[in-house]
C-alpha cells in the first residue's frame, strides 16, 4: 500500500544543521552537539521549560518534532489517537544510561534515570503534541528504510493509524542524527518509498 502513502514533511538534524523540507533552516557549525541543540531551541519561537530537563537524545527528537509541526495545521485533521509514532535508532538510550550510571555510586539520580529508555522520547513527543495513537521504538544496528516502510504500512493499511510520525533519532557522545518524516495517505508530497526515504536520510551529504 505504500503507493498511496506520501511524505508531507521531512526534517533532518545532523552535523550542526537543521534541514526542513530540503531547506537549511538553522546552521551553527562551531558548536558542540549539546550547545547546538540549545542554540536551536533558543532560535525557535517556543517556551517549553521541560526542554531543559530532557537528555540530549530527547532534546534532539523534540526539536525535530518542533520543526516538523511548527504549523499546528499539519495534523489538525486527525484525531490525536489516529496519529502513530514509529522511531528507530542504533544506541537505544546509551548516552542517558552512562550518565545515570555515573551517579549510582553516590546518589542515584531519578532525574537521569527517567531517560534510561529510548521510548521516553516518544512520551515527550506525545506530551508536547497531544498524540495518543500507536507508538513503538525499534533499536536496530543501522537505519533500514524497508523495515520502517513495512511497519508504517501495516499501521496505516489496517487503519490502526491515519498518519504517522516516523524516522530515526540517535545521540551518542557528540555524534547525532534525527531524520523525522510525517507520512499521510493520499496527500501531496514525495512517495513513501525506500528510494525517497534514503535520499532524505542522506540529504546532508548531497
Amino acid at each position, binding site marked *: 500500500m505504500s503507493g498511496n502513502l506520501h511524505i508531507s514533511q521531512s526534517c533532518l538534524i545532523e552535523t550542526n544543521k537543521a534541514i526542513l523540507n530540503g531547506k537549511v533552516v538553522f546552521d551553527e557549525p562551531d558548536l558542540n552537539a549539546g550547545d547546538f541543540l540549545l542554540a536551536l531551541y533558543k532560535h525557535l519561537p517556543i517556551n517549553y521549560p521541560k526542554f531543559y*530537563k530532557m537528555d540530549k537524545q530527547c532534546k534532539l527528537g523534540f526539536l525535530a518534532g518542533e520543526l516538523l509541526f511548527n504549523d499546528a495545521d499539519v495534523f489538525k485533521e486527525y484525531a490525536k489517537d489516529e496519529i502513530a509514532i514509529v522511531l528507530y535508532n542504533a544506541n537505544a538510550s546509551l548516552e542517558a544510561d552512562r550518565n545515570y550510571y555515573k551517579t549510582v555510586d553516590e546518589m542515584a*539520580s531519578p532525574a537521569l534515570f527517567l531517560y534510561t529508555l529510548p521510548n521516553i522520547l516518544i512520551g515527550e513527543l506525545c506530551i508536547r503534541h497531544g498524540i495518543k495513537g500507536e507508538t513503538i521504538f525499534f533499536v536496530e544496528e543501522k537505519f533500514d528504510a524497508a523495515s520502517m516502510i513495512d511497519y508504517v504500512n501495516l499501521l496505516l493499511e489496517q487503519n490502526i493509524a491515519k498518519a504517522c510520525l516516523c524516522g530515526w533519532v540517535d545521540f551518542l557522545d557528540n555524534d547525532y542524527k534525527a531524520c523525522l518524516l510525517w507520512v499521510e495517505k493520499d496527500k501531496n508530497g514525495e512517495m513513501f518509498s525506500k528510494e525517497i526515504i534514503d535520499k532524505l536520510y542522506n540529504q546532508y551529504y548531497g
Partner: protein
Amino acid sequence: MHDLKVQIIAQLNLQDLTPEEIGDDQPLFAEGLGLDSIDALELIVLLQQQYKVKLASAEEGQAVFRSIRTMAEYITNHQPAG
C-alpha cells in the same frame, strides 16, 4: 538564592539553564520551570544533603517548593544551628 539555583541546576541536570534564567519567584513546577514529581524527589534529597533539612510532611512540600524564594526561606528557618 544564587547558590540554591546553582545547586538545583546541578541536582536536576538542568545544565543548559543559568542561575540568572531562574526567577526568585518563578514557579518551579508546571508552567514555571516545568519540574514534576520526580524532581520533587530530587529537591527533597538536595535539602537533606546540602542543608540537613527534612520536610516535616509531604503536604508541606507544595508550599516549600513553590519557588526559589520559598525554598530559601524554609532552609533559613529550619537549618540546624552550627
